């Protein structure tokens, strides 16, 4: 019996062949943390060691509340900067860079075959580039800083075979929302999700990041696309170091093989308050909302911004709606500035904010009041996530959010193409 990508990379790291279900002790290639680094430092200091064991593996990116929205956040950031200087950490990205998952990818740290751990639940994103990446907690990051190792259970794998072609006005976000709705929020708990089949290779790196980012909302430990020409092209001028991609064997043992014809998927919306509460757009058409969010680590890249901009071009945001546009990183911001997308947003009446997580996690920049509703391109719609526990969040694609922001209620973007 052959092996899956996850079995192979964790076996390579463990120095022996391993199978799903085994527990291995491994040393990661990269360890990510963000604003929570301040809390991790406090845990690290309890361990009785002075130095981080492998400082060059650490990547610290400030993104969750940037720039600091209050004194507490400012103090956290200051403590992190002092720690970075004291430990001589090389890979520190201060508040001006963008969301950790986008920055880590575009800076060339996410490489095929790499093992990346992060103190953030959307760490599975880097499977888009063929890495094995999984989220862990704060105590674990502190412990890895000190010991350079961690125990991981080798996950079983669900393979999703995609075929067919996307309809116009439908994107990766609609496909992954459809899958999460169909399979459930815990379908892939503890497992890897491998996106495969002829149609998988058609997706851009940006779209692959959407799929792997949202794998977390199926409960997955990690997501994965086979590295291909698009991966190599993306990494050409940015890869930090050599890499050796890994593919699943043709006769690998999968926990399940699911199929999906992309041509059958229309625009999808996840309704409050769970990500698997997904319906076709027709079912929620007409629902009014007050705030739209276009951005986040899920959908804040140039392709997302340009999709939204094409809809806003020559149109105006509905007077009853506030539209927040938050590019995922400074590089994506600059690309959208040069492409003219930002000008279209401003002309249409959108509010363009600095790269970062923004209101996605309800800490600042557009908190919802009781009774308010948001339509967002983010990855979570849990109760109270963007502010009041009496508010509601619907999730959709950039095209759906843009078209709906013009209409003033949730609507089908295919009428705005």
């Amino acid at each position, binding site marked *: 019996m052959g092996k899956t990508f996850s079995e192979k990379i964790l076996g390579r790291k463990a120095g022996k062949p391993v199978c799903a279900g085994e527990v291995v002790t491994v040393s990661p290639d990269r360890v990510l943390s963000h604003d929570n680094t301040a809390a991790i430092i406090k845990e690290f200091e*309890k361990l009785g060691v002075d130095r981080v064991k492998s400082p060059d593996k650490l990547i610290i990116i400030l993104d969750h509340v940037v720039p600091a929205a209050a004194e507490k956040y400012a103090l956290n950031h200051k403590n992190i900067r002092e720690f970075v200087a004291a430990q001589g950490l090389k890979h520190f990205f201060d508040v001006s860079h963008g969301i950790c998952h986008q920055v880590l990818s575009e800076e060339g740290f996410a490489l095929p075959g790499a093992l990346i751990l992060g103190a953030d639940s959307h760490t599975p994103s880097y499977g888009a580039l063929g890495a094995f990446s999984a*989220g862990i*907690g704060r*105590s674990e990051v502190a412990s890895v800083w000190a010991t350079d190792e961690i125990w991981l259970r080798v996950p079983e794998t669900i393979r999703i075979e995609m075929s067919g072609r996307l309809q116009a006005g439908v994107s990766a976000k609609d496909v992954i929302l459809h899958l999460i709705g169909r399979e459930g929020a*815990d379908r892939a708990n503890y497992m890897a999700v491998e996106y495969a089949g002829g149609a998988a290779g058609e997706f851009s790196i940006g779209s692959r990041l959407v799929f792997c980012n949202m794998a977390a909302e199926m409960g997955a430990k990690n997501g994965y696309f086979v590295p291909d020409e698009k991966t190599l092209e993306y990494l050409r001028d940015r890869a930090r170091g050599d890499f050796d991609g890994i593919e699943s064997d043709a006769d690998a043992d999968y926990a399940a093989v699911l199929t999906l014809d992309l041509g059958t998927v229309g625009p999808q919306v996840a309704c409050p308050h*769970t990500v698997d509460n997904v319906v076709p757009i027709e079912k929620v058409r007409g629902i009014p909302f007050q705030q739209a969010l276009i951005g986040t680590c899920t959908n804040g890249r140039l392709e997302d911004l340009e999709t939204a901009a094409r809809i806003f071009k020559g149109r105006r945001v509905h007077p009853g709606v506030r539209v927040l546009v938050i590019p995922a990183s400074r590089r994506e911001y600059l690309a959208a500035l040069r492409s003219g997308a930002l000008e279209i947003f401003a002309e249409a009446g959108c509010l363009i904010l600095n790269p970062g997580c923004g209101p996605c996690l309800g800490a600042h920049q557009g908190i919802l009041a009781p009774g308010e509703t948001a339509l967002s391109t983010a990855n979570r719609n849990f109760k*109270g996530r963007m502010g009041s526990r009496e508010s509601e969040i619907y999730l959709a694609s950039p095209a759906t959010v843009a078209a709906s922001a013009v209409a003033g209620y949730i609507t089908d973007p295919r009428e705005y193409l």
Partner: protein
Amino acid sequence: MKRAKVWKYGDNVNTDVIFPGKYTYAVMEPEEMARHALEDLDPEFASRVESGEYIAAGKNFGCGSSREQAATCLKAAGVRAIIAVSFARIFFRNAINQGLPVIQCPEAVAALADGDVIAVDFIEGEIRTPQGNFPFARLPKSVLGILDAGGLIAYTKRRLEAEKIKS
């Protein structure tokens, strides 16, 4: 064995309702975290829960954000253990790393009602309820070591000290 009350909840209790995101980078001390435990699911929980009580819940408990405070705040609020149909992966790790026992036992969850008084025998691996006793699979030894130490930080500290003495 101490008997204590069960707080019963449903499926997919996520980390945002256990510990809202607005506090994640602003509230740093466990005692203060405890005051916000389960705030967006059951606003009365934090003020009414007593030390040693249990939570029973459906599938996928702790899904969502990796925030470890979701485990820290429940532990600091006095929760003795969480019994669930299943746990989300990162929460499962975080709970153990905070020294908070997690018990996967769908049969017990199905039988339990909110307010039931139960006892848990961690050595035998059994939940004693008014509806009968339910055995559960104990955690692997390596993981129990982390729980026994009171969490991962204490466990790692002990390990590093032992290595230092050896060398």
